[in-house]
C-alpha cells in the first residue's frame, strides 16, 4: 500500500514534468490554426514532422535560420561553461592553497558578489562592455557571464576536503603549483568539474536577459531569443513552428546531460577523495 502510494506520487511527478514537453512535441506537428483555437491534440500528426526540416533551414519569418541560432547558443553556453570553470578553479585554487596578504578579503569579496542578483549589476556591466567596444560581439555575449562566485565557492569546498598531505607529498616529489594543479588537483576533482560543467552549460544555454541587451545584431541571436522573436513579431503566430524550435532548443542541453550523466552523478555523490 505504502509502496503503491510512493510510486503513485512519483508517477504523478513524472507526468507533471513530462506532459508539457509532450504537448510541445505533439503540438509542433499540428496545424497552427487549430492550436490557436485551443484544439491541441495529444496525439502527434506524423504528417506534420516536416516542420522540423523547415525551421532548421529557414527559421521563423524575419529571423535567422534555427541551425544558426542553435550554433550561437551552443558556442555561448560552451564558452561560458568552460570560462567559468577555468576562472573559478583558478580563483578557488588561489584562496584555498596559497597564503597571501588579504586572502580572506579576496575570499569575502568573491563571496559578497553572491548576494547581488545579476540584474542589479546589469547596467554597469553593460556600460563596461560598451566601453570596451564589445557590444554585438561574441566576446561581449560571453565574457561578462564567466566570473562566477557560486562555482568558485563550490570548488573551494571541493579543494578544502583534499587532504593537505596530498599537496605536501606532491611538494616533496617536486611538483610546483602549476604541476600540482594539473597533475593532482584537476584529475582528483574531475567528477566535480564534470558535474559543474553540466550545470553551467545549461545555465549558459538558458541566458536571456544579457544576450537581449548586448547583442542586437540578429547574427548573434541565440535560440532562446529566437523563440521569443517568433512569438512577438507575427500577428499570426505559427505555433507549430514555435513549438518545433522549442523542441530543438531542448535537445543540446539534454544531450549534454545524458553524455555527462555518469560523471555528473559520480561528482555529486562521491565522498572519498
Amino acid at each position: 500500500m505504502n509502496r503503491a502510494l510512493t510510486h503513485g506520487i512519483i508517477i504523478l511527478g513524472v507526468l507533471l514534468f513530462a506532459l508539457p514537453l509532450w504537448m510541445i512535441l505533439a503540438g509542433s506537428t499540428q496545424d497552427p490554426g487549430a492550436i490557436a483555437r485551443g484544439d491541441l491534440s495529444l496525439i502527434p500528426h506524423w504528417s506534420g514532422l516536416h516542420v522540423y526540416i523547415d525551421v532548421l533551414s529557414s527559421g521563423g519569418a524575419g529571423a535567422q535560420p534555427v541551425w544558426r541560432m542553435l550554433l550561437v547558443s551552443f558556442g555561448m553556453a560552451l564558452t561560458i561553461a568552460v570560462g567559468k570553470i577555468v576562472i573559478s578553479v583558478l580563483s578557488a585554487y588561489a584562496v584555498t592553497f596559497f597564503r597571501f596578504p588579504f586572502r580572506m578579503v579576496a575570499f569575502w569579496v568573491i563571496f559578497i558578489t553572491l548576494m547581488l542578483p545579476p540584474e542589479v549589476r546589469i547596467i554597469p556591466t553593460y556600460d563596461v562592455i560598451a566601453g570596451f567596444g564589445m557590444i554585438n560581439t561574441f566576446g561581449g555575449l560571453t565574457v561578462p557571464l564567466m566570473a562566477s562566485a557560486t562555482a568558485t565557492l563550490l570548488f573551494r569546498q571541493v579543494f578544502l576536503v583534499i587532504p593537505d598531505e596530498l599537496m605536501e607529498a606532491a611538494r616533496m616529489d617536486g611538483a610546483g603549483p602549476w604541476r600540482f594543479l594539473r597533475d593532482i588537483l584537476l584529475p582528483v576533482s574531475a567528477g566535480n568539474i564534470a558535474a559543474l560543467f553540466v550545470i553551467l552549460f545549461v545555465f549558459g544555454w538558458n541566458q536571456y536577459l544579457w544576450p537581449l541587451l548586448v547583442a542586437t545584431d540578429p547574427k548573434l541571436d541565440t535560440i532562446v531569443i529566437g523563440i521569443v522573436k517568433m512569438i512577438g513579431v507575427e500577428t499570426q503566430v505559427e505555433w507549430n513552428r514555435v513549438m518545433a524550435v522549442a523542441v530543438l532548443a531542448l535537445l543540446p542541453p539534454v544531450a549534454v546531460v545524458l553524455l555527462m550523466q555518469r560523471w555528473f552523478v559520480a561528482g555529486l555523490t562521491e565522498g572519498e577523495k
Partner: protein
Amino acid sequence: MATLQLDGLRKSFGSTHILQGVDLSLADGEMLVIVGASGCGKSTLLRLVAGLETPTSGSVLLDGRDITKLDPAARDIAMVFQNYALYPHMSVAENMSYGLRIRGVPKDTIRAKVEATAGLLGLEKLLARRPRELSGGQRQRVAMGRAIIRDPKMFLFDEPLSNLDAALRVQMRAEIRRLQRRLGVTSLYVTHDQVEAMTLGDRLLVRHQGVPVQFAPPMEVFARPATAYVAGFIGAPAMNFLPATLDGHNARLASGHAIALPNAHPGHASVTLGIRPENVVVTPNGLPMTVDLVEPLGSETLVHGRLADGTPLLVKQSGAMPVGEVLYVDLPPAELHVFDAGNGQRLAA
C-alpha cells in the same frame, strides 16, 4: 647517506611556541625515533626538516649543507605520511614514479627503478592497481616505495603505522626496520607508540609538552628513565608509581612500610617510587594487595590491585597464575626507580 644536524630550531605560531630551540644531530645511517604524546611538537619538527614549514629561527643542516631555506623538493629528503597521501588517480607505478617523472629522469631508468623498488617491497603484481584497490598494508608499502625510489639522503616517517590494524602494524614495523637497515638511509621517525619507538630506534628522543626530556638508546631509556613521565610512557604495561617519604636510606610508603634503598638521596624528602609490573615479586611474606581485576593473557597474567593505603599496583607474572582475594607482593629495592615527587626528575642511581 647523510648526517642531519639541527641547530637551535624554533617554531612559533603567533605567541604559541611549538618548538623552543631544538639541537639534534643524527649520524649517517642512524634511525632516530621521536616519541611523545600529541602536542609535544614532534610532527612540527619533522615538517621543519622536510621543509613543509619554515622555522622561526635556527637552521637545518643535511650533510653539513644548510638547507633551512630550501624548497622541500630540493632537499633530497623523502617523507612517508600517516595517511599515506597516495595520489588517488594514479596507479601504483605512477605513484612511485611521479617524483622521478617531474625530475625528467629517462623513461628506461624510471621503469627499471619502479621494478626494483616494487621487487624490494613485494609490489610487483600490484603495479597497475589504483590506491583504492589496495589494502592498508599495501598502501603503506607504496608510500614507502615512493620514498625509496628517489634514493634520498634521508627518510622522514610521520606516524606511518597508526592507520594499520594491530597485526599489520607488527609486520610493517619489522619491515620498515629491515628496509632501513638494508638501505642504510638516515631516518627520522615520529610516533606516539612506545613499542614502535623501542623497536625501531637506534636512539630515542622522548618529548613532553614541547621540550625534550630524554635522548638515549631505547634500552637505556627503558632501564634508566630520566623522569617519571618517561618512565610511565615507555614500557607496557606502564610502570607503577608509589608516593613515599625519604628518611636516610629508607623510603616509607604511605602505608608506613619502609623499604631500604641502595642509595641515599639527601635533600629530597618526598619522592615517587617507580616499579615496572614485571619486577614486582609475589611472595608469601610480602605486602598485602587487594586484588580487583585479573587479566590472563595466556603467556602472562596481569593482576590489578590496591595496597593497604589505597595505592593502585599492577603486577605482571609470566604464565597462568591462580589468584585469590589478596596477593602478597614484594618490591625489590634494586628494581625501584626513584623520582623527585615535585618535578618528576630521576634521582641518581
